[in-house]
């Protein structure tokens, strides 16, 4: 693929539902061959944006192209280059996993034997061959997701939309979906991923657009975004309540961070400064605490949460 090729370019996309502005002027430029993350809370307009780009909804204003093809003027050209895995598994629950994939293979134009072969191969590759003959309504959330993604790559698309592919999944299924996404991108497909989880966007995406109330409020690499917010936090739970004040002093001294006392009488949180190396600050803090004779029961390093990103970003807008 050509360097610098743009998979999706959206300018001023707007979509209203009755009097709610679901999407209120979204601009995007998604470089080809990468994972692009669209990060935002429920109701931010992520799904509506994706549905417009996938030609499922017509924008009320603005325009967008997918690999140079206008979504409004030439939807058929767009459709032949994209696949969508929606937020709710886009599968027929009454049919088996195998039948779903055969049906879609037929609809992509494979003949009967080729469709059956393709369906079987995909089920094998996604670890679903044991469930091939079961109705999809009996599948777990993780299995549905994988079948849904399998359906989206019956024909390798140039652009794959994944709308919240891991929402509601247990950690292991989430890891499997991430594996799949990395493999697909490594083979040259562009992925536009929406998510509520900063961690997910951070791990997978080359660039992230943060979207809130229908607008892009920040855009950049994960590193750029995080450094604009802060490096995260160190969370502690102590063994004894009466050591908490002491621990606060030690932490403030050790890493020069602001320390907050939680409502839980044995818990406290140190907020790291932008640019801090979370891991080394964490281990340093842990060493100092044990030297001071403070018994730590639980210790964790937290990335800035989506809440913190939003707070920081919306504060930035107001300031």
């Amino acid at each position, binding site marked *: 693929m050509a360097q610098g090729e743009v998979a999706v370019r959206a300018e001023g996309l707007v979509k209203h539902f009755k009097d709610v502005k679901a999407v209120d002027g979204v601009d995007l430029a998604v470089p080809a061959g990468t994972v692009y993350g669209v990060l935002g809370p429920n109701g931010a307009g992520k799904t509506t944006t994706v*549905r417009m780009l*996938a*030609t*499922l909804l*017509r924008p009320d204003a603005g325009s967008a192209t997918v690999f140079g093809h206008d979504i409004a003027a030439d939807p058929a050209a767009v*459709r*032949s280059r994209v*696949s*969508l895995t*929606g*937020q*709710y*598994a*886009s*599968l*027929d*629950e*009454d*049919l*088996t996993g195998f*039948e779903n994939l055969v*049906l*879609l293979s*037929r*609809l*992509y*134009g*494979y*003949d009967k034997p080729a469709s059956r072969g*393709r369906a079987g*191969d*995909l089920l*094998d*590759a*996604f*670890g*679903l061959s*044991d*469930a091939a003959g079961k*109705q999809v309504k*009996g*599948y*777990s959330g*993780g*299995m549905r997701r*994988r079948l849904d993604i399998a*359906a989206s*790559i019956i*024909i*390798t698309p140039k652009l794959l939309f994944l709308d919240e592919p891991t929402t509601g999944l247990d950690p*292991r*299924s989430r890891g*499997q979906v991430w*594996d*799949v996404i990395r*493999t*697909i991108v*490594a*083979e040259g*497909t562009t992925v536009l991923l929406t998510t509520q989880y900063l961690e997910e966007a951070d791990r997978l995406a080359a660039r992230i657009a943060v979207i809130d109330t229908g607008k892009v409020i920040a855009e950049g690499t994960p590193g750029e975004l995080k450094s604009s917010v802060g490096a995260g936090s160190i969370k502690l739970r102590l063994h004894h309540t009466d050591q908490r004040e002491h621990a606060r002093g030690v932490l403030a001294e050790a890493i020069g961070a602001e320390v907050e006392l939680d409502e839980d009488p044995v818990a406290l949180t140190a907020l790291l400064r932008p640019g801090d190396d979370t891991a080394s600050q964490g281990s340093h803090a842990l060493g100092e605490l044990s030297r001071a004779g403070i018994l730590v029961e639980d210790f964790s390093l937290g990335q800035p949460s989506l809440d913190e990103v939003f707070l920081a970003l919306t504060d930035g807008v107001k300031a």
Partner: protein
Amino acid sequence: MAFTETKPQGDQEAPAPVERERLRGLLAVGERPQAPSAFAAARAFGWRAMLKIKHVPEQMFDILLFPIMMLLMFTYLFGGAIAGGTGDYLQYLLPGIMVMSIVMTTMYTGMGVNIDIQKGVSDRFRTLPIWRAAPMVGYLLADVFRYAAAGAIMFGTGMVMGYRPAGGPDGVLLGVALLLVFCFAFSWLWTWIGLIARSEKTVMSISMSILFPLTFLSNVMVDPATMPGWLQPVVNNTPITQLVDGVRGLFDGAVDSGAVLTTLLWSAAFVIVFGSLTVRAYNRH
């Protein structure tokens, strides 16, 4: 106690992990098949609907039992009162009640279309590069199969009850064919409503409020000549009355070619008007 047998359905079943190498191989297959023809796409959706019947056979119950119930109830409850005897009444009633019960079951098409939208599966269909009406035509193809099955069962029951068609096998087959053509065409009304309605319950209540007056204000059960004068022109000109006249004529061996022609014209009108409204609603959704 066999704990292993009570494992819940879920990730605990530990499906095999994703196989990255195989996945890579599948992605590398570059050859893209040619998009299917409109007919092939519709046939694939028809196959889907047949699979749904296979997996959820309960849905055939109301489609097959409802007509038999209607036939038995109307013949034996009202036959005496309306025609002075059940035998004569059955001769009059059977073609009409067949039309009524099968036309009534057409509304399931709209509910199926609506459920597809609610469940999100139609989102996937709509991002496929296929003929846009294919999912609906596929539904209708499978539905025509169901109507044919319902028609056969009703006819069989009628024969057992003593119905004898003067039109012979040819007349009966042509009559049923006319009914199926009309149902296929009429169902485009439901695909449209299925697309624009908010939920399957809405589809149901809209369908009922159209179907009940439409099928009862007809010559299915009684001769319109017995109705008040102001009502007769209305009843005589509904598409259902025309269809019943056409089917009854073919069954009885006294073909009413005017009614057959009118029915075909109504069918064409339904396809043109509601077919285009359906495709428009589908594109807009």
